[in-house]
């Protein structure tokens, strides 16, 4: 070919193509300077008189002041919820309850851009994830549970399901609005009222949600949102007038809550720590498995309760897989969460960044081999490059402890039995992934893996119709699906 083209033709060198910044506009989001507590359908100043700042982890920019609820505030919120439960809400026809939930779902959709921007700004996650995953799924949860509200008798035939009363709910910072919807949608569908505490570092979308409740005309006191820190959460779970506590967060706090509630008769569900195994067999579709591994651990900066942080690779395919994985890491775009092309955003908080750094240092100390692709991290804010550890021993801390960051530990196995043994060899059991083109092996593995969710040839996919929850130290109770109704109901039979 070259011989045939004219010699004079200058062949331009290949294009080194840089993507120009493509930031999502922020002006759709109008933040207030200060956000009070949402109690009894109104924004009120905290009795504690305490406020704390909420920031953007990507830039450390101050976004707003948020109320810090103290014991008196918690008490008022629970009273408001109790009042609403005993007044209008529990007497409402279920079909009417459903209408409110449908209205909330539609409002989340209508305000999705604003919510996505707030989520990325306050939490550090890439806008493409908040836009395409968090917010649509949050709306989907409300739609799904709205449908159940007047069909509970069919969900639990002959058992006479009835609401519990007031639920105290505490949610984490990794999927703020989505976790809110996982908690509030089933609780309300079943006829309960709630007091919800968003995470300390990510209160903004919950505060915007209070405006959605107002727009939906939700009766006062049905949803109460109290912002604050760990002490607020502690006051909430200790409150004597709760019928139900639902918590998503660390195993340590989960254990403390369980101790606190032992013998009180308060119903409890916990969704806790995890160290999920993603298992790659040598007959998998390799390139798609690599994508799945990337999605499994670098999605949402690895701040995912079920992140596939332990990669178990069949030894016969270890080298090509790791080579492909490292190359793929070099195409991950780290940076401004509001940029539409960002794949990996900011670490949620200084505290979390310190924890990731500490565990990564211990991994290096244990003799594991670390790889990070060359990438420029912004100077301000909390950042951590995507990281892979190879040569990881099963006994290493990075193979055992939850890092909750963009850090993957790669281990190998030889046979399916060994894969199961290693995957189950953890105090946790929230999720697992299996990659093989062999259908019978998927079923064989799923039967033996002690994890609440087993994904086959995919990872980190969620749907409101599918129950989610853990084994062992990953907690108990299920959220999502028909199963997600049960923790919010009591049965006469």
């Amino acid at each position: 070919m070259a011989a045939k083209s004219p010699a004079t033709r200058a062949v331009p060198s290949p294009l080194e193509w840089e993507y120009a910044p493509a930031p999502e506009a922020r002006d759709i989001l109008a933040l207030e300077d200060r956000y009070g507590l949402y109690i009894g359908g109104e924004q009120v100043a905290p009795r504690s008189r305490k406020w704390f700042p909420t920031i953007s982890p990507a830039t450390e920019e101050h976004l707003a002041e948020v109320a810090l609820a103290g014991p008196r505030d918690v008490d008022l919120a629970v009273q408001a919820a109790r009042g609403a439960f005993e007044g209008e809400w529990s007497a409402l026809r279920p079909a009417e309850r459903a209408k409110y939930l449908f209205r909330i779902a539609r409002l989340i959709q209508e305000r999705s851009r604003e919510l996505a921007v707030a989520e990325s700004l306050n939490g550090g996650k890439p806008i493409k994830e908040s836009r395409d995953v968090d917010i649509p799924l949050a709306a989907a949860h409300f739609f799904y549970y709205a449908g159940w509200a007047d069909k509970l008798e069919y969900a639990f035939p002959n058992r006479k399901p009835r609401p519990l009363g007031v639920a105290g709910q505490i949610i984490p910072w990794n999927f703020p609005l989505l976790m809110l919807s996982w908690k509030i949608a089933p609780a309300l569908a079943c006829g309960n009222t709630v007091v919800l505490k968003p995470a300390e570092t990510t209160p903004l979308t919950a505060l915007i949600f209070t405006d959605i409740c107002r727009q939906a005309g939700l009766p006062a006191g049905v949803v109460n949102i109290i912002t604050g820190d760990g002490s607020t959460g502690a006051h909430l779970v200790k409150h004597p007038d709760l019928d139900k506590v639902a918590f998503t967060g660390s195993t340590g706090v989960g254990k403390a809550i369980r101790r606190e509630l032992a013998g009180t008769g308060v119903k409890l569900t916990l969704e806790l720590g995890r160290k999920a195994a993603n298992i790659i067999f040598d007959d998998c579709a390799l390139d798609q498995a690599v994508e799945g591994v990337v999605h499994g651990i670098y999605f949402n900066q690895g701040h995912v309760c079920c992140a596939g942080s332990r990669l178990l690779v069949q030894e016969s395919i270890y080298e090509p897989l790791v080579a492909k994985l490292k190359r793929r890491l070099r195409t991950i775009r780290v940076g401004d969460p509001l940029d539409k092309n960002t794949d990996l955003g900011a670490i949620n908080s200084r505290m979390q960044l310190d924890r990731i750094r500490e565990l990564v240092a211990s991994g290096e100390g244990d003799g594991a081999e670390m790889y990070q692709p060359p990438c420029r991290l912004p100077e301000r804010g909390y950042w951590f490059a995507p990281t892979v550890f190879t040569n990881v021993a099963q006994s290493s801390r990075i193979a055992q402890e939850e890092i909750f960051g963009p850090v993957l530990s790669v281990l190998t196995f030889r046979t399916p039995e060994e894969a199961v043994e290693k995957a189950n060899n953890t105090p946790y059991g929230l999720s697992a992934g299996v990659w093989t083109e062999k259908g019978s092996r998927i079923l064989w593995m799923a039967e033996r893996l002690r994890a609440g969710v087993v994904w086959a040839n995919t990872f980190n996919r969620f749907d409101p119709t599918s129950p989610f929850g853990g084994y062992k130290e990953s907690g108990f109770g299920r959220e999502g699906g028909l199963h997600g109704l049960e923790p919010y109901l009591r049965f006469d039979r």
Partner: protein
Amino acid sequence: MAQAQLLPRDLELPLDLRLPRVGSVDAVALEARAGELAKRSIKKGSKLAALDLAIRMMDLTTLEGADTPGKVSALCAKAMHPDPADPTIPSVAAVCVYPNLVAVAKSRLAGSGVRVASVATAFPSGQSPIDVKLADVREAVALGADEIDMVIDRGAFLSGRYAKLIDEIVRVKEACGSAHLKVILETGELGTYDNVRRASLLAIAAGANFIKTSTGKVTPAATLPVTLCMLEVIRDVHDETGRMIGMKPAGGIRTAKQAIQYLCVLNETLGTAWMTPELFRFGASSLLNDVLMQIRKQRTGSYQSGDYFTID
């Protein structure tokens, strides 16, 4: 797989340990990844750079029964100077025609650097005896084609006669002489991504310089996932042997936006080394005008009517 003796002796891709595993493709995950890359937001300078490259990568194509010397001449003029009002717009890579029109294109394009590509081997069905196909190729090359776009025998592939497929490509490659060989898989007739992957490997093993999705005569023609699937094969072959194979999606790519999506998939699958017309082409006829329109929009800030761009 094919019998070893049917492979040419100087094949750069031996059928032993160094052949990338045929493996399989997960359709759901492949389409999800392509969908993800299609959402890249390309703006300003990076958009202009991509559109300029898209023109340089274009095989401007006319493959109609109604093609005439006049039609092909007009297309050649467009290929050399896509926007006569704007000298900064580059020429396209090649003009792609039927063998009968190669001579016309060759003379019109002489000295311009724009190559002449000819379809051959009983395009588009490939349902002719091998000798007819070879004669077709030799004629096209003799008339001056720089590049040959052949079709594979889908009948042979789908009935599992892989050796026949390889043998045919090897012989067409011989008949090409110094002309570049692009092998059209007609992915719309192959049914599964697993088949696309397998056919890609066979074509490359047999000596293809480029693998190409479609004739443009079958629906679906090029799609983003099928292109990603083929680029992954090219990546595996490069990992295994160092050989750099080109890729040409063809058919159904009509807008600048689509072209940019393909370039994102290319850039993030094979990287900078492949961001050149030497290794990537768009087979298209109506794409060029939309790209020109988008370039002018990007530069002037406003869209102009279709009447400001020549229809050829």
